[in-house]
């Protein structure tokens, strides 16, 4: 599932040294899970993994700031919505 893959990527990449488990609707930026470079890494990941192109206009918190939002965004891009 898209969401599981995104959660796994974020957990492995950004929460390695933490006992925490990311909540699907937690803000990635506000919880300091990722920083601006991290956001770009996430964008790179979803572009490669799901074979889609993220446009400049789509670099918003609404699309990218939580696991749920990213999953929804990816599914929308894939035309599942």
């Amino acid at each position: 599932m898209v969401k599981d893959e995104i959660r796994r990527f974020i957990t492995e990449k950004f929460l390695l040294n933490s006992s925490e488990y990311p909540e699907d609707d937690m803000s990635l930026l506000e919880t300091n899970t990722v920083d601006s470079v991290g956001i770009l890494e996430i964008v790179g990941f979803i572009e490669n993994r799901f074979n889609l192109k993220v446009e400049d206009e789509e670099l918003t918190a609404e699309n990218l700031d939580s696991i749920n939002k990213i999953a929804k965004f990816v599914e929308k891009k894939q035309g599942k919505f």
Partner: protein
Amino acid sequence: MKFDPVLVHDWLTRTARLLPDKTALISRGQRLTYREIEEKASNLASALVLMGFRKGDRAIICLDNCPEAVISIYGVIKAGGIFVAVEPKSPWPVLSSIIKDTGARFLITHRLKLFGREGLKEEARLPARGFQVIVVDGSPSVFQPCPKVLEFSRLTKKVESSVSLPGLLETDLACLVYTSGSTGKPKGIICTHHNMVAAARSVIQYLGNKRHDIILDVLPLPFGYGFYQVIMCFMFGGTVVLEPSFAYIQDILTTIEKEKVTGFPIVPSISAMLLSLKKFPEEQLKSLRYITNAGAAWPVSHIQQLRKLLPKVKLFNMYGLSECKRVSYLPPNLIDKYPESVGIPMPNIEVAIVDQRGKPVPVGQTGELIVRGPSVMQGYWRDKNLTRKVFKKGKYAADRWLYTGDLFRQDENGLLYFVGRRDRQIKSFGRRINLAEIEKTVSCLEGVLEAAAVPVPDDLGGEVVGLFVVGQKGSKIDEAQVKLFCQQHLEPYKIPRYILLMEALFRTPNGKVDYQKLINFLKKTGIKGVLENSVEKEKKTSEAELIGKEQAKGTPDKSAK
């Protein structure tokens, strides 16, 4: 006769008296007037004093950019304290060591910093006795309540009992800034109210700030460049739009357009991001009056592109260091002719460039920059030896020069040029190489967005240069091109032995290139490992070893010797 205030927070009080209903701060969906900020900060100060906070006490503010962070800064100094702004992303061991080093008795932070789903985080071990934690709201319902922790929102409400706040001098300490990005023990830089007001005044003067200015602050508040935006704005009576980050670039552009932002302080990674957009958003940026750059050298290519795309916007190329806030700025009308210069000393600052014996060097020659003026720090917190090392005493107490550790030269017009950090020189096969020079050269290659050079241990040469290069979006730059360009523009001994293409550089929370992380990355993977991995990576996008989405490639360059 009326005099200007001398304390940082008295400027806020003054502006709140003059413009009580003006919007001072826009952040996290809130719009706060000067009156509201003044009241909340005063209430917080009273609450702190009631809890036993005394003049000279330290309070750690470990918050993202949010209204509470601004109120905390002013609340702490109104209570006679010293604020210590700490990056909220700092891991607990770092935060703990800062608590210990400062002897702070108060910590203001996000609930999430302390609590996980199971309650108080195990790693969040705080000093037991006399230590008070204040948490800023953040979905409290998710977390179990904890009796030892106070709610920020309750402390900024009106207190009934009258509390007298301590009287302060402008020579009393106001802030303690830990420098970031450096290796080893962090240094705490201490500044008085006088230092801060003097620095802010000079910057306001050369930027020409007026009340109608609306400043977008996306820089972290723990960073001097970030919190000074607020200090300055509250002095001249403008409005600050405070954003937690520039990560979601489209949201930032929307904010600029909506709030009609006039001043945009940036670091080079922000201009890199703006310039990497497929379509440059000049329409959304049309309200801008100026952009300032500090924190790291502004690549000339960024300056030139921004000049073309935003011809009406004044670009201020600036230079400074935490020890004295700001040193110089290039008047914007000179930027086309001297884009590499960081300009002239700002008002109320004197500089000199000296050799190793402290004697001024002739025009055009490189030496160490030394600085004198009222915005220079008092010294390093509880570190007399280090403080003694960076200052040279003059004829009287205030007459002292700060040795910046930065190499500079000055041209015949008196313009200053940053050459590099003294400690960013390496010795390779017996010859000195300045890593900043390599970066600057490679940045001039078309298609290169930015470059970072690091020393790589070498059996024969001692150290050789490793270069990380980030291409502009859409450019098909490869390492062969970079190498060829180096061969054309650098002496043979300066040519990087290893060239690695990356999609982004590691950065410190302040947006500076994190050289230590780049070096560690090479160390961990090993030069050979990086090369092998890059071959692997072409077959399969395995992310196991590579951090980020770097496409690490590299070629050992035998001709580099």
